[in-house]
């Protein structure tokens, strides 16, 4: 028993010594001494070869950050800082030095690139972001039509912190289709595919001083890490649809005089790639979709059963057209935004090796066949439109 006691005392001494010697608390940082970063934007600086970094952080001292309650006095909600330097590291060092608080990167909601920088190439700026364990790979990235800082300095009426707004917005859009939100990891995966062209959403800041808005403005198409062109919002639809996995999306179809709003409940796309005899490839997309009617204008002469058939046909045509349009844009840009090359490399690894060299030639010569199967099982609360009812009488 005595020896036991002695051992306890020794262990206690050892532990307390450890605590005394080791209590450096190196990693300890209290929350309130941190600037919680909500968005970061990279731009081309005025000096050639330099970049400028804009960081948006929540201002905890003022108002209720993050909630829209005090939207009116949004001016104090966010702190925006700017720095210019040769590299991202230099800029971040400068930002850190110039503020009294440390920057906290974990909660960054969005990474923005100015369009000018995107055209020059963004690969080298991604290295730090991927290397740093504090930065998260699932943070979405976007291109700003204009300068990146505009999006972060924008005063939105909806939510004072535009970084938070963008993060939430992309999150909500990804429910429609995962393609709407491009996370850093998605971008890097596409980048590593080699010949595939990564695509990043573009946003645009519109409006006057106090009532600014951020709008989606299509997608930026990259070749390797340089932006080479863009899809408009309309062309983007085809891009989105061609990947399938679309939920709760609305399209409008029309046959010239009549118009119908259709709600795509689900849309799936099966992609198949086969080699052609002449060395080219053939891609077939088989799309199956469940659609419901959300709005009808016209169609006065039709009875419900034939109307649904007719609408199904219209929808099939519409979806097909959207994809073909988008595909032709992609071909003119010579950018494989659909990732067809990845499919080839997975399915025909041997042939792929020699095809890689002449990919742009192959791509411009792809046989794209699209089969669309649309089903309209329901028409909402009413079957016929009011206009049709009139006709019946």
């Amino acid at each position, binding site marked *: 028993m005595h020896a036991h006691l002695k051992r306890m005392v020794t262990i206690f001494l050892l532990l307390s010594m450890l605590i005394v010697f*080791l*209590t450096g608390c190196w990693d300890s940082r209290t*929350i309130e001494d941190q600037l919680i970063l909500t968005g970061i934007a990279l731009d081309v600086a005025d000096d050639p070869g330099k970049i400028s970094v804009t960081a948006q952080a929540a201002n*905890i001292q003022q108002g209720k950050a993050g*909630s829209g309650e005090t939207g009116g006095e949004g001016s104090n909600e966010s702190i925006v800082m700017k720095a210019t330097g040769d590299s991202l590291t230099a800029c971040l060092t400068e930002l850190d030095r110039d503020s009294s608080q440390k920057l906290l990167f974990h909660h960054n909601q969005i990474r923005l690139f100015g369009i000018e920088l995107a055209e020059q190439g963004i690969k080298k700026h991604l290295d730090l972001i991927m290397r740093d364990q*504090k930065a998260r790979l699932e943070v979405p990235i976007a291109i700003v039509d204009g300068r990146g800082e505009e999006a972060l300095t924008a005063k939105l009426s909806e939510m004072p912190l535009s970084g*938070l707004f963008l993060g939430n917005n992309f999150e909500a859009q990804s429910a429609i289709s995962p393609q709407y939100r491009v996370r850093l990891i998605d971008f890097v995966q596409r980048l590593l595919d080699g010949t595939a062209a990564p695509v990043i959403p573009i946003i645009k800041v519109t409006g006057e001083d106090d009532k600014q808005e951020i709008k989606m403005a299509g997608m930026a198409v990259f070749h390797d890490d340089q932006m080479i062109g863009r899809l408009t919002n309309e062309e983007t639809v085809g891009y989105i649809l061609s990947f399938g996995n679309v939920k709760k999306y609305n399209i409008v179809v029309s046959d010239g005089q009549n118009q119908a709003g259709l709600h795509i409940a689900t849309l799936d796309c099966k992609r198949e790639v086969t080699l052609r005899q002449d060395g080219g490839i053939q891609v077939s997309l088989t799309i199956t979709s469940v659609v419901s009617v959300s709005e009808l204008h016209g169609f006065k002469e039709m009875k419900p059963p034939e109307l649904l058939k007719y609408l199904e046909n219209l929808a099939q045509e519409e979806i097909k057209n959207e994809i073909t349009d988008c595909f032709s844009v992609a071909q003119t840009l010579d950018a494989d935004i659909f990732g067809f090359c990845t499919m080839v490399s997975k399915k025909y690894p041997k042939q792929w090796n020699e095809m890689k060299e002449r990919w742009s030639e192959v791509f411009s010569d792809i046989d794209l066949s699209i089969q669309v199967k649309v089903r309209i099982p329901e028409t909402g609360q009413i079957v016929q439109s009011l206009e049709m009812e009139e006709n019946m009488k």
Partner: protein
Amino acid sequence: MKSNRLPLETDLLDVLEQEVLCASCAKNAASIPELATGCLSGDTVLLVDGCAGGLVINSKGWEKRAVSEPQSESVVRGPREGFTENLRTNTSLIRRKIRNGQLKVEQMTVGRKTQTGVCLMYLDGVANPKVVETIKYRVGKLDVESVLETGYIEEYIEDAPFSPFGTIGYSEKPDVVAAKILEGRVAVVVDGTPFVLTAPMLFAESFQTAEDYYARSLYSSLIRILRFIAFMITVFAPAVYIALVSFQHELIPTTLLFSFAKAREGTPFPAFIEAVIMVFAFEILREAGVRLPRPVGQAISIVGALIMGDAAVSAGIVGAPMVIVIAITAVAGFLVPALNDAGSMLRIVMMVMAAFIGFYGVAFGFLGMLVHLATLESFGVPYLGDFDGDDTKDTWIRMPLWSMTKRPKSIARGDTTRGQRFIPPLRPHVPDEEGEEP
């Protein structure tokens, strides 16, 4: 019947003692001091003309508390009787539950000055003889002056005196002790206290209450799991909070981070000091509430919990989230009363680890706790149990009684089946129409 004629050489007193008197304990005493002591301590002295010496007949009648509802373990459903301070009453309460010849009661006397009566009770042929021997040996070897409560015995015979976890169980309720004896444990009843020790004890026992077995098994299982979670909360909640706000900020959802940061804005102390202040304040209030007479105690807790907490937040000494964390920690601790003291100690250890190196420290604190639990043994039985087979049926869940046909493997020896085969209630209990049971 023996013959009426007495053999000449026998003493009349002996005859009286052995053949006539019905007292449980009569003693033939020769000297006057012996007789006097007997008389003084409440016994009856019988002197017979013509006999040297006299008989001291045990006829002590002490004032004793009636059997009443136990204070520490109240139940909604289940027997309400509790042990009293009288050894005989206690053993009879247990024996009334187990009317079986196998139930052995072994009387011992401990304490040089107090001469306290101690009873070991166990089911012969069910309890592990090794455990019985060990307890008998340890209690028999005790050389202490006084034994005033079971706590005295517990400290002297337990396996791990420096562990925060108790390795001997105790209860105030005869039904609980009877159930433990039926599982093969040994009960130690001590004169002068309503608490009865049971050994060996498993970690899982701390999470069991008497009512678990009287309520529906699904509900009992749910509550058991809840108790496990509550124990985790009471040990780890402050540590996790410290680790969150001073180390791993990335774990907090963004909007919550904003409100945490706002709440902490303007409080002067780091999270660890804040937590220490609050934990100590809570322990002080609790201790005050326990020791004071009940009406005053309640007032203290109300003043402490409501007014002081609120005042501390509005004065900017601690942040509001910390008050919430400590409150949930405190309340969760009361779900597992058996581990309340262990919880308070471990909580502080975990807080130091968290303040030192964040979640890594908490993780290794947890691992250290696990290693410690794995090293513990209670009279040769692994404290953590084996996580194995039938024994798990009554740990973090409680299976229906009819499914527990075996006594705990780690505790019972010999007769380990509780019943031949228990018929699950889903099967028809009445014979079929053909008159044959399936």
